[in-house]
């Protein structure tokens, strides 16, 4: 496969995960448990949306190298159907209760920070600079979601139970983050992308340490959704993504080309 085709695919994975998770966090507007958290959830979403725009803009430029025309960030975000989305399954999981949202964020932030730090060493300078920009923001995300896991886990009986349930429920979606397919292996070989398998041990170590401090139990299930190379990164999604896109893309679908 042409390496630009693979890079285009890879950049969509990075961008789509950010955009889809940002949309999920945006669903919390006006529903946060306290105003500080309402603001924080959407601030994190805003950072992810900004990073997603940078990845998708670059994806469109790379696309133009092997097609007559590359798509803009907006065309990619608003006019692709679910099957063309390349986000991690974890990102499209519904918000659930506050514990579920924070568990999803915690699993993802710990991975995201490792991934972006690895990508700051990319041989592609554009990938490296977007990753360096994003890593600074994500270090705050990681600290916050970690704090919440500890606070809820080591909190009341109710909060402890809900956080444990959330960690258990989402665990099966974490394996996909570290499952490498041909696209990722080729880009890792070219020193452009990161080999996700190498992120697994450091992720597991930090996640286990936080869960331990939170007086919670690390989930142990081994079977992983999308871990066999047939998951969100390959365009095979859960039933949740279509609903999310229906809302996110409504305006551009109903009024094609609308601008303001």
């Amino acid at each position: 496969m042409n390496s630009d085709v693979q890079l285009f695919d890879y950049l969509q994975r990075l961008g789509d995960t950010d955009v889809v998770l940002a949309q999920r966090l945006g669903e919390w507007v006006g529903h946060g448990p306290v105003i500080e958290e309402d603001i924080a959830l959407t601030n994190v979403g805003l950072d992810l949306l900004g990073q997603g725009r940078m990845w998708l803009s670059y994806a469109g430029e790379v696309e133009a190298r092997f097609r007559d025309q590359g798509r803009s960030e907006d065309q990619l975000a608003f006019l692709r159907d679910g099957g063309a989305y390349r986000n991690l399954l974890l990102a499209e999981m519904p918000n659930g209760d506050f514990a579920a949202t924070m568990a999803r964020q915690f699993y993802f932030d710990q991975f995201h920070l490792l991934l972006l730090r690895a990508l700051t060493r990319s041989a592609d300078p554009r990938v490296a600079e977007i990753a360096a920009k994003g890593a600074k923001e994500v270090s705050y995300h990681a600290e916050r979601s970690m704090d919440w896991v500890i606070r809820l886990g080591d909190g009341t009986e109710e909060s402890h139970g809900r956080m444990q349930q959330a960690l258990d429920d989402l665990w099966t979606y974490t394996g996909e983050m570290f499952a490498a397919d041909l696209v990722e292996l080729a880009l890792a070989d070219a020193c452009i992308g990161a080999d996700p398998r190498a992120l697994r041990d450091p992720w597991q170590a930090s996640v286990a340490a936080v869960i331990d401090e939170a007086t919670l139990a690390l989930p142990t299930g081994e079977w992983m959704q999308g871990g066999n190379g047939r998951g969100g990164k390959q365009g095979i999604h859960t039933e949740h993504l279509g609903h999310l896109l229906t809302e996110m893309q409504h305006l551009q679908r109903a009024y094609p080309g609308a601008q303001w």
Partner: protein
Amino acid sequence: MTIANAQAAQRAAQPPLGQPVLEHVWAALAGVPDPEIPVISIVELGIVRGVAWDADRLVVKVTPTYSGCPATEMINTLIREALAAIGVADVAVVNQLSPAWSTDWIAPEARTRLKGYGIAPPHVIAGRVDVAGISPLRRAHVVVPCPRCESTNTQLLSQFGSTACKAQYRCGDCLEPFDYFKPH
């Protein structure tokens, strides 16, 4: 610097006929306030990374504070307006990502003004070890003095405040909540 580089730098500093010199351009940009923190200018904030003439066009390099900062587009508009006011019509505002913006670039006098405005200025990052949230589990604890009463008896309420670049704190003595400009 090679001769070719020196010549290029000279050309970039050379305004076209009837256009202002770069010193005047910088002075005009220094008059543009940050839309969300109007007590400091975009130059003091450290986001204007360079200005240069490219023939008849003025190229202004700007770096975003945070990737998703909604003020970015507003800032670009304000830059064009400020430059139009000194007679520069042909402006290209270029987004420059690298090196990533740091709060260490905020000018010292601007830090004082931030404090007067009720925002605790950011700690300096340079020379400090990794601030990551991964291992050790928590960032080194920093004391953020209250910008109103100087008390160090303050408490973090949230890592995210009224804008992405600020955290929320509360003072245990004067009991006022306040914003802290996060080191970045």
